């Protein structure tokens, strides 16, 4: 079963998470290149994934794009978590299955999700964190006009070494200005 379209972009659609998505997420999110990209060095069983996807916190959406024949296929997942309702502060996460890296799907999906965060959820700012070395993710936030707000030194450990964590943020006022341009 294909999830319902919740947000629509030019090349991607963001659809509701359904039980049929569990196998895709389970297979793709465990792969070393993917689990290392967002630093989650713990194997997840199918049950873990099912619980996280269907019962976990935050707004989760599956990212779909058109395959070579123009048929929709799953390419990744995005998430928006409201860290604090009082300060209207949210956090973003994204991963794209490795075969689809470099296509711009992550950027387009995140662009839709940020627009939703401000236009529908009334957030004041959203934050994204990237581990040093993850150039694909860095590019997403830079492309979307996020400001680089700091470097938390040695805050992560990937591939045998401590790595810096970069913090990016965008305010609702900045997003509106950008949308008007």
């Amino acid at each position, binding site marked *: 079963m294909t999830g319902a379209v919740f947000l629509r972009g030019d090349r991607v659609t963001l659809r509701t998470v359904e039980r049929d998505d569990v196998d895709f997420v389970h297979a793709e999110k465990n792969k070393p290149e993917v689990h290392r990209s967002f630093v989650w*060095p713990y194997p997840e069983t199918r049950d873990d994934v099912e619980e996280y996807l269907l019962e976990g916190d935050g707004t989760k959406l599956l990212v779909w794009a058109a395959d070579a024949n123009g048929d929709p296929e799953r390419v990744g997942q995005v998430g928006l978590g409201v860290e*604090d309702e*009082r*300060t209207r*502060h949210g956090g973003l996460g994204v991963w794209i299955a490795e075969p689809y890296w470099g296509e711009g799907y992550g950027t387009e999906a995140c662009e839709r999700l940020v627009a939703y965060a401000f236009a529908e959820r009334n957030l*004041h*700012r959203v*934050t994204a964190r990237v581990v040093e070395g993850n150039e694909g993710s860095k590019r997403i936030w830079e492309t979307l006009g996020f*400001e680089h*707000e*700091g*470097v*938390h*030194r*040695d*805050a*992560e*450990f990937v591939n045998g070494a*401590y790595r810096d964590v970069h*913090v990016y*943020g965008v*305010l609702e006022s900045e997003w509106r200005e950008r949308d008007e341009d």
Partner: protein
Amino acid sequence: MPGAVFLRGDRVSLHTIEEEDLGLLNENVNDPRVRRPLTNASATTMAETEAFYENVVCDDDGVNLLICVHDGDDAVDGDAKRGDGDPVPVGDVALFDVDERTRSAEIAIAVHPEYWSNGYGTAASRLLVAYAFDERNLHRLQARVMATNDASRRIWETLGFTHEGRVREDQFDGGEYRDTHYFGLLEREWRAREG
């Protein structure tokens, strides 16, 4: 009489938190002068503080300790001069969000306003930072400070933390969005400094 001494310094000592200390902690967490810089806008009942004590202080990987100043210290005024020789509780300090994999944790402190400006916060934080690196084998410590909180900021600067960024407008106080400053200290920096 405060709980057992866990870390000892010249001017302050850090003790285990006992049930009789919860009144002070509850007063602190509700006092606008303390809770607002700590970005806590919720009222905390004594029952919630007791639950925090059971669930976090007594049953968590972090460390929460009571800051006590030594009785007779001239810098202490008011109730502190009880003259009974017991250390006087002035606040608490905590190591939390301990991540064993990345060997990192966050540090935070709350001193009762009656005892501000005596350097107790810095002295207590120094003891806990040394403990984090020397006993807990941590690699990195983080501290967060709201942009308006100069006193806290000075603690981390005095202890050699590096300013690692300014997250814009993620807090709200006094009718305005406020920035948060991030500070970090690595074990090698601490050793170079202390050695």
